[in-house]
């Protein structure tokens, strides 16, 4: 089964003076992705630029409006995702646990629609 690991965290923890925290987490993600790739489990993924770069198209009552920020204003923001192929939920949860993260945050594990269900 394919699962998306959606990473929600407080991006301010990576905003230090010399960008060290940022470089460190990127290196950790590279190692994490490399481990997934080595086991043949990775199907995709991306890191996202910070939430202040987001623009949201809101639809309501048949109208589209633009909003100069992320979908929801909250401390933890969607910061990136992995798409992995593993046998079951427990395996996906195990990878979600191992996912690098500098501060507090959450990893939402969502099965991917596979066309048969």
């Amino acid at each position: 089964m394919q699962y998306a690991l959606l990473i929600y965290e407080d991006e301010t923890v990576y905003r230090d003076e010399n960008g060290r925290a940022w470089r460190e987490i990127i290196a950790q993600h590279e190692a994490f992705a490399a481990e997934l790739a080595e086991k043949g489990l990775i199907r995709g993924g991306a890191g996202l630029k910070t939430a202040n770069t987001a623009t949201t198209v809101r639809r309501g009552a048949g109208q589209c409006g633009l909003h100069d920020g992320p979908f929801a204003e909250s401390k933890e923001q969607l910061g990136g995702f992995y798409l992995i192929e593993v046998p079951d939920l427990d395996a996906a949860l195990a990878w979600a646990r191992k996912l690098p993260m500098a501060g507090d945050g959450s990893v939402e594990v969502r099965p991917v629609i596979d066309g048969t269900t």
Partner: protein
Amino acid sequence: MARSLLDQAARTHGGRVIAALAAKFRDLDLAEEAFAEACLNAAQAWPAFGAEGGGEPRDPAAWLYSVAQRRALDMLRRRGVRTRLVPDPPQPPPSAEDAMIDDARLIPDERLRLIFVCCHPAVAPDARAALTLRLVCGLSTQEIARAFLVAEPTLAQRLVRAKRKIAEAGVAFEVPGPEAWPERIGAVLSTLEIAYAKAHEDAAGAGQHAGYAKEMLDLTAVLADLLPDEPECLAFAALVRYAEARRPARLDEGGAMTPLSEQDPALWRRPLIDQAEALLHAAARRRHPGPRQLQAAIHAAWCSRASLDEPPPWPTVLALYDALLTWRDDAVVRLNRAVAVAEVSGPALALAEVDWLDSVAFRDFGPFHAVRADLLARLGRDGEALAAYDRALALDPAPAERLWLERRRGRAAHP
């Protein structure tokens, strides 16, 4: 005749058969449907067994399993027809001879696996116990709804949602590896605790939970057997045995509840107490204490009483509750502890502790009002005691509890 035999067989073997089917086909709905169809088949086929045109196969569980397995394969084939358009040869219903041959087959016991599926942390907590009771213990939706005090449609919807989540999220039909046990066993034990609490509340054992008290003995035995290095599992199995051992003494001749300290130990079931003791000792040997071991130890303290001539073990019980508080500091533990405080240090101190508890959370909790009423009565505050008894009685206690409360209330009204 065949009907009631069948109901009984479905009730007794449903959990094992559904668990085995779920493990084989990895689909809870399919397992349930196939089992239901097998029961329909049984209703027609079983009267053919036995000499007088009524009876059941030698091994009803194996019969139901092998027929349900065939029905499940039929269903899968039918599903395949829709997408692949392969013709589906109709299968005749099993003959009595088929069933005789099938009798020899063994059903693998997959209940533990099914419990882990039902109690997966991905399933909403309020659905875990319900799903376990439905699939593993074979209770009807109506019975579970009554036990959890929710409307039947609400509960049915909860079950549907939980099964859908298990299927769509890809929950594994496996007993998890040891590295996941601390978290997963916690969820399983909490679920079984909730399930057992419902069975235990009913002192008379005559209500809708009577059947699953026995099922809990069975399930906890399976759990303890398969996870012999998990002390909390062993302790929970011990706890259920201690509690069930005392069941014959929980009612007096008038049908009223008998409090633990007044129960005649001669009526307790010794073989269950012996089993419980062996389990609790095995747990202690692991040298990894936990809350369920302490709870079981409280039961053990009571069950070590040989006769009513021996003083009740209140000081030991109090010390164990003190230790339990370091694991589980919740209001119910504090309420139970207060009962022991009353016996060791007097009702005044106990009442102070009870009144310190959150009375809002306990507003609709009958035992809280019953304990308060008793303490107030012992302190001679009869007016307040009567009011507290009335609160407890207004919360619809089980018949045995009601009789006991009415008797105590009567004593407070005419001291």
